[in-house]
């Protein structure tokens, strides 16, 4: 299906990659899209590599399998680059977004010659500055929205404000920090040359 965007998330248990994929599904749903958001469940434990997926489409989604040829890949933890083939099947006219401070040259080497676009963001920096602790999923969510252009950034921020109000109903003090994390991440994500 030509209008369908497929996204694969790589993270480690506890970092919120699954939550981020569900929040992305939510945000896209709120712009009127058909969505799927699902994790690949394994023997989950803190720190173990996990995979989550999104399909986003203008028409109903019927396919029910994992994603093998994604348009976009999001890597929430760059230590995964050593052990997981994160670009497996990734389309060359797609892109990969990595939470890292590594140099462009080093990344190119670690991605074994992936020819598509590579974007990076220091989600740790964003998270520490805005939230005071390390929650990489919020910045990574903003980063993939920016890179994939699946929705207008303003609409996205507006929608996320609503989601956070709901999600953090019992601790409203963290809403502002999370909104700042999204805004900052939208600016911080950069394509490497």
């Amino acid at each position, binding site marked *: 299906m030509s209008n369908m965007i497929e996204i694969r998330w790589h993270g480690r248990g506890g970092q919120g990659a699954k939550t981020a994929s569900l929040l992305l599904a939510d945000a896209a749903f709120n712009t009127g899209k058909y969505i799927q*958001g699902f994790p690949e469940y394994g023997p989950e434990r803190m720190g173990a590599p996990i995979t989550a997926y999104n399909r986003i489409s203008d028409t109903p989604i019927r*396919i*029910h*399998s*994992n994603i093998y040829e994604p348009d976009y890949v999001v890597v929430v933890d760059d230590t995964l680059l050593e052990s997981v083939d994160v670009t497996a099947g990734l389309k060359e006219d797609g892109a990969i977004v990595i939470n890292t401070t590594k140099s462009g040259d080093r990344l190119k080497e670690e991605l074994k010659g992936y020819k598509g676009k590579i974007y990076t963001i220091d989600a740790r920096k964003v998270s520490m500055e805005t939230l005071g602790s390390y929650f990489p999923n919020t910045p990574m969510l903003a980063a993939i929205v920016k890179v994939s252009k699946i929705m207008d950034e303003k609409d996205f921020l507006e929608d996320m404000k609503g989601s956070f109000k709901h999600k953090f109903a019992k601790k409203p003090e963290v809403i502002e920090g999370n909104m700042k994390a999204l805004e900052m991440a939208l600016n911080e994500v950069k394509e490497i040359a």
Partner: protein
Amino acid sequence: MGIRERLSGNEAAATAMKQINPDVVAAFPITPSTEIPQYFSTFVDNGMVDTEFVAVESEHSAMSACIGAEAAGARAMTATSANGLSLMWEMVYIASGMRLPIVMSLVNRAVSGPLNIHNDHSDAMGVRDAGWIMLFSETNQEAYDNLLMAHRIAENEKVLLPLMVCQDGFITSHSIENIELLEDEKVKEFVGEYHPKHYLLNKKEPIAMGPMDLQAFLFEHKYQQAEAMRNAEQVILEVAKDFEKMTGRKYGLIEEYRLEDAEIAIVCMNSTAGTTKEVVDALREKGIKAGLLKVRVFRPFPVEEIGKALSHLKAVAVLDKADSLNGAGGALYTDVTSAMYLNNNNVPTSSYIYGIGGRDTTTKEIESVFNDLVEDSKKNKIENPFRYVGLRKE
């Protein structure tokens, strides 16, 4: 019309249960259906339903509590998966034997061993002869819709059989997808109140339920169960018609997708049907006349409809997500080929075991099955009908 939402399959099932607002829910948590009683218990706690939630200590007790509740005259529901259903097994037969229209959400998972928490249909296939009506659901939407129709079917006087709504563990139970919900009042009106004709708490009619039943009567009672199962076909269709009037969503015993003019077809159940539709469309673009027959109602088995719907084909593949381990293909295959035989239908038909223990089923694999069928359709007789797809052979 309807409420646009996005829910996981488990959320959809729990939402249906909330709107049905049964008298009793008794359940014990087991992956991947755990979330259903988990969400439901929060509805109870928040006062959103009037249900008596019985947090039992095992699945055997969950089904026992449902049996007790239904026998007393209440409407009872439960949810489980795999080994939870195995532990219920004794009571599953007693529920149908006592003609109690209990409704269960079965989130399909591989039965141990070895231990596996992922999806296949071995749990459902283990109770296929237990006298329960069995509906299968391709999506979260169908899991929701099937549950809303469940009580009307099960509680019908001509039926009075328990009913389970199946959906694929994790694949739909844990995937967030779009869904159209109904308003609470509409569900309430559609499902209606439960007024059993005979029940234990009726002071005016003291009765015994589930007593000893020896040579003199058990045979007749089993015949009545079989008759009730045959009656269910018509009732399922009547309820579906009413449901369509309300929602516009049409349900039959089976769903035919581009089958009418197809030359080759796959028969399957649950979420794989969606993936197959995608492949059917892709193959049609290439001029290959592929089609799909999705079995929605597995019990009662729609012998006539399936026999007829497949009669014009040149080759058929039946996909079973559980191996009967009998050396002779899966359970759905056996039922489908039997239905074809009764319809004097001699189309070459193969059994494909697939997706065991959560093995992902891709469009490529479905396409490979259709490719096999293209070859089969050139022959009158196929040599090896007992096949596998997605199996590593090295």
